[in-house]
């Protein structure tokens, strides 16, 4: 055996040993990791997707086309088993989301009020007996009433027969007195818009509204005696 052969044999054994050691280490690392952190199934989130065909962008030199409305989606089939019926609710009753939004508005208004009302504001430092917001619930009740009035007026607010551009800078104001039961018992145009069609729309909105939800007891006397000013604008 020559020196060269002996060196080759020694190197071969070393390489073989190294391969065995590294392989063992690799097996330990891989399976050990599996034992310590067992593999979990990926989350099975259902994603509803809709395949659409992306159109080719219209060349800018082409004349425009009137967008054609997509056909309405087919009605969903009724479920095989009817869901448990829920107690009937007023369709106009505000949803939980709306209630949260209203609360948030009231909270913001309170914050603004705190900032805007100077410490030495005019009036009795303790307020007056019939002019207090004693609780958040009371404020919410007032807020609800105001929202109801605006919603009702807006639902009936339609200007007929004239172009939108003609009322751009117009507005009209109506004084409305509301009875304790919510009936509008008096309406008076305080400020005309100067446009017959606009004023007519205001009259109609108030007349068609007719009745709103009863004002909260704390406001009832005031809105019946002094009324509510409603400003109609475009």
């Amino acid at each position, binding site marked *: 055996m020559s020196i060269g052969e002996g060196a080759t044999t020694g190197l071969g054994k070393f390489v073989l040993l190294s391969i065995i050691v590294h392989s063992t280490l690799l097996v330990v690392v891989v399976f050990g990791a599996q034992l310590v952190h067992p593999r979990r199934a990926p989350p099975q989130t259902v994603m509803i997707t809709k395949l659409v065909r992306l159109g080719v962008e219209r060349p800018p030199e082409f004349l425009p086309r009137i967008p054609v409305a997509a056909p309405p989606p087919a009605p969903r089939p009724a479920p095989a088993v009817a869901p448990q019926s829920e107690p009937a609710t007023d369709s106009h009753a505000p949803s939980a989301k709306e209630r949260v939004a209203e609360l948030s508005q009231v909270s913001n208004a309170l914050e603004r009020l705190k900032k805007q009302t100077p410490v030495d504001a005019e009036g009795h430092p303790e307020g007056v007996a019939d002019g207090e917001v004693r609780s958040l619930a009371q404020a919410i009740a007032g807020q609800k009433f105001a929202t109801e009035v605006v919603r009702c007026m807006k639902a009936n607010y339609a200007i007929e*027969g004239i172009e939108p551009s003609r009322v751009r800078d117009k507005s009209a104001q109506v004084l409305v007195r509301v009875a304790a039961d919510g009936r509008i018992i008096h309406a008076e145009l305080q400020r005309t818009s100067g446009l017959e069609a606009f004023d007519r729309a205001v009259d109609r909105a108030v007349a068609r509204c007719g009745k709103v939800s009863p004002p909260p007891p704390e406001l009832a006397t005031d809105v019946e005696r002094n009324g509510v000013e409603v400003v109609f604008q475009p």
Partner: protein
Amino acid sequence: MNRLLRVPSLGLLAALVATAVPEMATAQRLRLVVGGPNFRPFPVAVPDVNSDATDKSLGRETAELTEALRLGIDLARSLEVVPPSTYLAPEKEPWNKPVFQNWVNIGASGLVRGLLEANGEGRKVTLHFYDAMAQRELVSRTYEPTAGKIRQAAYAFVDLIVETLTGETGVMSSRIAYVKRTRAGKAVFTCNVDGSDMQRLTDEDVLSLLPAWDPSGRYLLFTSYLRGNADLFRLDRSNNALEWLSKQRGLNTGAAVSPDGKRIALTLSMDGNTEIYAMDWDGGHLTRLTDSWGLDVSPSWSPDGKRIAFVSSRSGNPHIYIMDADGANVRRLTFQGNYNQEPDWSPRPDGQIAFTARDERLKFDIFAVHPETGAVTRLTQDEGNNESPSHSPDGHHLTFVSTRPPGPGRKLYVMDVDGSNQRRISHDGGEYETPAWGPRLGYK
């Protein structure tokens, strides 16, 4: 807790609870702001016009009067007819003492009631227009039309309603001029804006083209081969006198009278190429306005008379251009499409320029371009070929011709300027071309 929420007065509570834009009123009242109205046409109920029951001859005219009232109201952009099928027994109420609640209940904001009576040889028409919601009469008129002119009373009253509601006079007294193919040529006709009362103005056996009104409505200009060449003629409608206005060599065509009635823009080809010229009302002071190698045709005046829109092929394809009334400051307005023609400038100060264009599907449709921004909007689509727009005198409507079905050929249509309410007004199957909506003519 109480102290934190305590505020000095009820007025502040009012400010607190106001929804949309809460404000403190001076009288410390709750103040609410309502915005975002719906805009819609004024719904008007038009029950059958009543007539003297003892005079049977009035039956047909009563129906015609009712139909004309409904048509006129339906055509007015600011009004719409409440469908007659919804009316609650109008015959049970006195014609001049309406039960307003019945009309409000069917969604009518306005109500027209009328009575037709014989008046010797003529007729007497009494019409009332009520605000049904306010339960009051807004306007009433009595007309005494001659027999056969009963529609004029209806149109005059519709215009009065439009004026009462909007402050703008309606367009029912205007007429539409157009060219219609005849057996041996093409003649100029006019009709009411609902297509009724068609009258031929030029010879049936001569080729007459491109009618244009003067601002008074007394004169109609048109090109005719009456003397062998395409010359420009002017017809005085009051006495049918015909005047040979321009007889230059080549084409004398596409006349447009300026809004003040003093100048006439027209296309002449006397120098070999078609160019736009302007001349005085009497034909004098002929001035060349364009000078390009391309075709320059179809002038249309801006409402203030200071600019002219026209078609030029100087860029290779016909496009809409604008220039000053003296020919200066030429500006290309359209860059989309490759065959834009027949511009018609709205009479409204902020109005659009309607034009015909051929799209990439090789269909002709009506478009509008804003004269300042160059923004193009499409008004017709996917319904045959639609061409030759012309604005109504209030700028709210357009008349045009369309090949859409049913039936072959070009039919006469009107639509609102935004492309809505397209309706056919010619029903005889004729071949119509180049309508021109004339000015308000009033009622005699």
